[in-house]
């Protein structure tokens, strides 16, 4: 079961409200599928992120993939530690492997995302 304190997309990103900011990352399933992650490219603070559009790139030994934003907003902070330690995304995708903190344009967008339960059910359909 995935952590219940956050919301999920069908493309395997998560978003969690922390005070007024939305923290984003990728799910355990996503890191498992990607394999060993070797590089994460993140936006700059001040950049806008747009629902379902790429806000960065994640590269593993197998493939490079876009990171798709779960909501609209403006980047306030990024996880600088991932520059030198991209393996944090493999080791701890839900905490230490977070990617960006965003000021949401509309917090209500989060409500439209999947719950942990719905996301787990979605994963079952992919097996």
């Amino acid at each position: 079961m995935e952590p219940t304190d956050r919301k999920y997309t069908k493309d395997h990103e998560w978003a969690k409200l922390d005070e007024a900011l939305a923290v984003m990352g990728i799910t355990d399933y996503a890191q498992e599928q990607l394999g060993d992650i070797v590089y994460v490219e993140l936006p700059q603070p001040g950049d806008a992120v747009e629902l379902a559009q790429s806000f960065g790139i994640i590269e593993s030994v197998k493939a490079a993939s876009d990171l798709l934003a779960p909501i609209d907003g403006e980047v306030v902070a990024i996880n600088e530690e991932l520059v030198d330690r991209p393996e944090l995304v493999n080791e701890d995708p839900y905490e230490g492997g977070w990617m960006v903190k965003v000021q949401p344009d509309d917090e209500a967008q989060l409500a439209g995302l999947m719950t942990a339960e719905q996301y787990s059910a979605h994963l079952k359909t992919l097996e």
Partner: protein
Amino acid sequence: MTEPLLFELTSPGRVGCRLPAVDVPEAALPGDLLREDLPLPELSEREVVQHFTRLSQLNFSVDTGFYPLGSCTMKYNPKMHEDVARYPGFTQIHPRQDESTVQGALQLMCELQGYLGEITGLPAVSLQPVAGAHGELTGMLIIRAYHLERGDEDRNTVLVPDSAHGTNPATAAMCGYRVVTVPSDRRGNIDAQELDRLMDESVAGLMLTNPNTLGLFEEHILEVAEIVHGAGGLIYCDGANMNALLGISKPGELGTDVLHLNLHKTFSTPHGGGGPGGGATAVTEELGPFLPLPVVARRETKEAGAGRLEYYLDYDRPSSIGPVSGFFGNFGVMVKAYAYLRSLGESGLREVSEDAVLNANYVLHRLKEYYDLPYDRFCLHECVFSGTVQAKLGVHTIDIAKRLIDLGFHPPTVYFPLIVDEALMIEPTETESVETLDAFVAAMRQIAREAEEEPQVVRSAPESTPVGRLDEVAAAREPNLRWMG
């Protein structure tokens, strides 16, 4: 490694060749260009030859074994082509020579353009691009130039199916386009309904591969062409998989406007190792004026006693996107592709594709009970399996690939296309005998059995190579590109 580096083999003062005595006045080099040390390896000719020969023997090549690398068409390269490409008339010429002294070379290029135009149904051809992705770039620049010349300046998007080669979206992005992905349907075709929804006046074109990277013919190709053309877009076809269609189906007759060919895949010129390639690009008559400069052409001579033809380099093409490489492209590659076409002829060329498709279906049917086949239909020149059954047993596609090396085969393409989990993409090509295919099938079946009974054997492979599993993660995270420190 079993072979030391040249730097490790060095012996101070040893030389590989002795230069003749200077017979011109000596002149000193400018002092600021001189350096005290020049740490290059010092070896005899014999040591250098031994070193590189030993390295070549560590390599797996088309000449040593079966090489079913999907989407790469690693067919055998007939040795006759090497002889022909070494004819002095082809090797002892210079691109700056007067046209009248290189008529044979120009004739060869002009005829090759014609043959490729006939095979693709796209009559205007440039031989200049030197690689597949270079041909893609040339093709997309032509599409861009076409829209701009018509004053159609608002098209900023290119559609690319989710099964595409990674070079397709990269090419579109390099041409300044926004890339939008089109999903595949359940039968592995581009989803025509989604395409219809995404296609509008902002779209410059669609980049399609046919047969696609699942090795499947696009069943709705005519409908797809109608949708794209209907909204004013053009169709670029990635010709990497042309080995399935030679003499059978012409992309130009299926609505393709631009197509690149890989001479080093389909037309049997050597491939890989970063060596020279050929990305000839073919377009419709309408797009011909945009081809790179120059194009080789033919005209009647102006001299008296006309009726004789001469070949020349046509630079008078005001709409051209300009040259895309130095001079005329990789000429030696063109000679080999030309030799291939002339030695096969029309019927031989069709047989190439028939046998390539037959071989791929043979492998597909002999392995489908052992590996999951996500799109279960007749394939064309390659087949794509999924290693998901084995993955549940803890043996992943990467392990299967490594185990194949121990059993004497080059692995297929793995983890591509991206829409197939644990993908294994097998392209046997037409040049393999049924005995070779049977041996490969036996090896794949053996690995499937090992995955069930002794997975450790597969997971620890390869055992037979000079080095085992390399640490790809460390190499990517902390690349160290210097031989010393």
